[in-house]
């Protein structure tokens, strides 16, 4: 009986999904372009640099909002505006594009403003802290369900690190590796919450969200770069701890010119130079791997929502969950690997 009901339910859900998909195809950008109607979702704007949110003057300056017309409405409260409410036509989005050229000037390199990515990073930080501090709060010897979950996550990370570093070292490296993992993971996953899409400040001339209040921190180049810097410093400090100043000989093996003769010595010096460069390049690869993945995911979600709204985005969300997990594992895992290379006692 229950089996039949479940089957029926599944069938109904499936049919609804298919219907929504068809509606999405027809009413989305693709169908609209063919039918010549106006798309359900207005054309999204993609900003590579994060947008300043606070102070308001900085926000308006960078978005070209004229304070006279829209300030009071947009500054007083961040409007929760459903994208479906919008009515803009093709001309309007063309206008928006035209304006975008003008007002998408990013922050100057030394200019300070609170950006939407920063806000979401703080949000993620608070969520992480709540999650773990609540989970570890009671610290009882016989763990509850929540504590067991967190402990098994910790255990998994320690086991993973032990495979690379050995048990003792893994225990010491655990805090930073785990924090990198959780920071990347929570930023990526929280960024999938719909809140990120519909909270924002609308423009003065139309009802479109011009500045989102929250935007996944991974899509801000500075966040992966900050993590890469932390990871780099961490690895180098551990390298120095393990080898003393002899650690530098890995990159500048001038001693081997005397030890092994000029020819072999020069090769060693060159190899050392390559090592040094790769050590620095790592930061760049770290940064752009995460930045690229997160930004691509964000753009993919926005674009699919624009092209085929309603259900098609769900598959992208599934994909993005996976990508977020993979990227956080990669970031933490590579930090571990570089750490093990830095502390390993190889003779050069």
């Amino acid at each position, binding site marked *: 009986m229950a089996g039949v009901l479940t089957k029926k339910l599944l069938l109904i859900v499936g049919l609804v999904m298919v219907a929504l998909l068809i509606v999405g195809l027809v009413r989305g950008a693709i169908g609209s372009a063919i039918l010549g109607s106006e798309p359900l979702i207005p054309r999204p704007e993609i900003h*590579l*640099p*994060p947008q300043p949110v606070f102070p308001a003057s900085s926000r308006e300056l960078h978005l070209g909002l004229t304070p006279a017309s829209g300030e009071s409405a947009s500054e007083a409260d961040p409007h929760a505006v459903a994208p479906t409410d919008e009515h803009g036509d093709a001309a309007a989005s063309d206008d928006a594009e035209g304006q975008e050229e003008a007002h998408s000037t*990013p*922050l*100057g*390199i*030394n*200019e*300070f403003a609170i*950006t939407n*990515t*920063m806000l979401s*990073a*703080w949000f993620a*930080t608070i969520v*992480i*802290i709540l999650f*773990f*501090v609540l*989970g*570890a709060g009671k*610290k*009882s*010897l016989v*763990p509850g369900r929540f*504590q067991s979950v*967190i*402990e098994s996550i*910790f*255990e998994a990370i320690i086991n993973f690190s032990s495979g690379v570093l050995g048990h003792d070292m893994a*225990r010491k490296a*655990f*805090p*930073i590796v*785990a*924090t990198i993992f*959780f*920071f990347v993971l929570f930023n990526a996953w929280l960024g999938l919450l719909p809140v990120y899409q519909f909270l924002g400040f609308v423009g003065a001339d139309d009802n479109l969200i011009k500045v989102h209040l929250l935007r996944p*921190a991974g899509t*801000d*180049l*500075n*966040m992966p*770069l*900050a*993590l890469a*810097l*932390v990871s780099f410093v961490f690895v180098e400090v551990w390298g120095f701890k393990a080898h003393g100043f002899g650690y530098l000989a890995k990159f500048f093996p001038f001693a081997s010119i005397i030890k092994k003769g000029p020819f072999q010595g020069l090769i060693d010096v060159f190899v050392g130079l390559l090592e040094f460069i790769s050590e620095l390049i790592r930061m760049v690869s770290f940064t752009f791997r995460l930045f690229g993945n997160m930004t691509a995911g964000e753009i993919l979600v926005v674009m699919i929502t624009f092209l085929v709204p309603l259900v098609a985005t769900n598959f992208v969300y599934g994909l993005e969950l996976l990508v977020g997990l993979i990227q956080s594992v990669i970031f933490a895992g590579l930090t571990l690997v570089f750490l093990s290379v830095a502390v390993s006692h190889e003779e050069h």
Partner: protein
Amino acid sequence: MTQLGLNIPTLIVYVVNFSILLGVLYFFAYKPLLRAMDQRSERISESLAAADRARDEAANSQAAIAEQLNEARREGQRLLDQAREVAERYREEEMVRARSEAESFVERARTDIQRERDAALDEVRVSFGDLAITAAERVIRRSVDRQAHQELIAQVLEESGDSLRRGS
């Protein structure tokens, strides 16, 4: 690079943000939780070891108890055997003593009888002499000849012998 969004203050904010997160998690989550986990695993291994020890001890003490029980049983058996043996010996000794006592009683009775008989014989012999004299007196009074004399003595002897034999 600024077109990509590179911004030094933002970068610093993220580094600080991450450091704060690291610090908070370290002091409020990692350290206490890892300590709790370590304590638990220590506790578990300890209690496993204790359980092993207890089991060993139980097995040992069981063996010891069985050993003691056997020992006690053997001891009991030994005591019983000993007691039986002692009783046997005692019985035999008593028997021997009783028999010898009885024998000595019989012996004494026999010697008593012998002595009584001898005494009786002596008495008879004395009275026999008297009889002989009496007989002789009679003979003399009747003044019989030698032959009659002889016959009389024989007769008396025979009579006395008969009476003696009857009397004994």
